[in-house]
């Protein structure tokens, strides 16, 4: 237990560090799926071992010990977890649990707002809605009734083939439910801040996924690349003029736009089974460590029970 309980935390650190490279090294659809699923699994494992750690401290409180009928003295003697660590784990469970809850609630509210907006817009799911706006912008409102939203100025400015590429990109977001991968990873990162880099990595992977989907739909990766580059430059130009509300949006230090254009102008990314195997191994170790930690904790509490407490079980067996 002294070791196993910390392994998932180390795994979260490694996944956080490896998320960005992985999102660029393997095909984007694979990267998005693998990263979102791993983040959720690792977050679950770390939450679980934090819970186990916290309970080793809570178990030493007399009322809890009385309830479980184990001895505080023998538990304290056998427990390999320092009290400081137990205390930190208790605090972490409270804080991270609250963060997770808040993330889930705000996501639910946002999706409800988007749904209401989609309903009020009328029309069919997946249909384009043109916003009468001079500020270049295009995005999707996610969900089953999702819509593609594009400003008139951007649609008018792009040549036909690039306009088609842009629409295909947005349709891919809706069709593959990309918001779910993002939401899952954000929830995981709320439960474990070490996973924060995975949020940006999954975001990037879903954008690349939609880019490659659009390339397949239009049959031309270069057209998608030029559409992104042109729209990106135009959006910057208009942003300088009509700052206003848009100025509030956070400026990203390293934009993913350039990376996406480069990726489309380069040959498609090869499959890399080795990278995925490595990730798989990390997950197996994480989950088995969490299970191991739980077993060890159970043994610890069992051993701290006086013999009398286990006596009835033995009689019952006979």
């Amino acid at each position: 237990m002294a070791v196993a309980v910390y392994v998932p935390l180390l795994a979260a650190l490694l996944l956080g560090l490896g998320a960005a490279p992985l999102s660029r090294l393997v095909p984007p659809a694979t990267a998005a799926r693998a990263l979102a699923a791993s983040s959720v699994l690792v977050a679950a494992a770390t939450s679980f071992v934090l819970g186990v750690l916290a309970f080793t401290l809570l178990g030493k409180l007399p009322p809890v010990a009385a309830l479980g009928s184990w001895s505080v003295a023998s538990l304290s003697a056998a427990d390999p977890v320092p009290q400081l660590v137990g205390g930190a784990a208790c605090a972490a469970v409270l804080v991270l649990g609250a963060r997770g809850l808040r993330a889930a609630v705000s996501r639910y509210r946002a999706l409800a707002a988007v749904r209401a907006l989609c309903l009020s817009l009328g029309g069919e799911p997946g249909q384009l809605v043109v916003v009468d706006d001079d500020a270049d912008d295009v995005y999707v409102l996610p969900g089953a009734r999702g819509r593609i939203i594009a400003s008139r100025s951007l649609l008018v400015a792009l040549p036909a083939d690039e306009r088609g590429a842009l629409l295909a990109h947005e349709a891919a977001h809706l069709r593959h439910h990309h918001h779910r991968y993002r939401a899952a990873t954000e929830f995981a990162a709320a439960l474990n801040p070490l996973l924060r880099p995975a949020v940006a990595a999954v975001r990037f992977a879903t954008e690349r996924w939609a880019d490659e989907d659009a390339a397949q739909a239009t049959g031309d990766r270069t057209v998608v690349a030029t559409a992104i580059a042109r729209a990106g430059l135009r959006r910057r130009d208009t942003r300088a003029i009509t700052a206003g509300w848009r100025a509030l949006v956070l400026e990203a230090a390293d934009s993913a736009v350039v990376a996406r254009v480069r990726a489309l102008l380069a040959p498609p990314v090869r499959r890399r089974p080795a990278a995925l195997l490595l990730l798989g191994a990390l997950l197996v170790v994480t989950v088995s460590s969490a299970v191991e930690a739980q077993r060890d904790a159970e043994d610890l509490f069992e051993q701290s029970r006086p013999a009398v407490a286990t006596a009835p079980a033995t009689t019952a067996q006979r």
Partner: protein
Amino acid sequence: MSKKRGTARRDRGALENEVLAALASGPMTPREVRRHLGEELAYTTVMTTLARLHEKGAATRESAGRTFTYQLADGASVQARTMRRALDAGLDREQVLARFLDELGPDDVPVLRRLLRQAKGR
């Protein structure tokens, strides 16, 4: 088989969206829409797509001699003010919307211009 049908339906949706996007430039006859889409599509395909959009209420049309002039209906276009108000009401914009574009950093602009030239040169 079912997969194939799924693709066909998706293509139809994509086509409708491309026609709607073309109509963003203003009212047009089917011939003008076709020119706007790069003339790759058959005239009849454009005609039927426009007729379907009209049936769905996404486009309105007015008789113009022997043909119709189509334009975006209220259901397919929305005022910028309405959209902003709706989005600003209780929405973490960055969290939910899958944007096509991130904000560009100052260093990105020359790089992007160069890549665009390079791509067009192909």
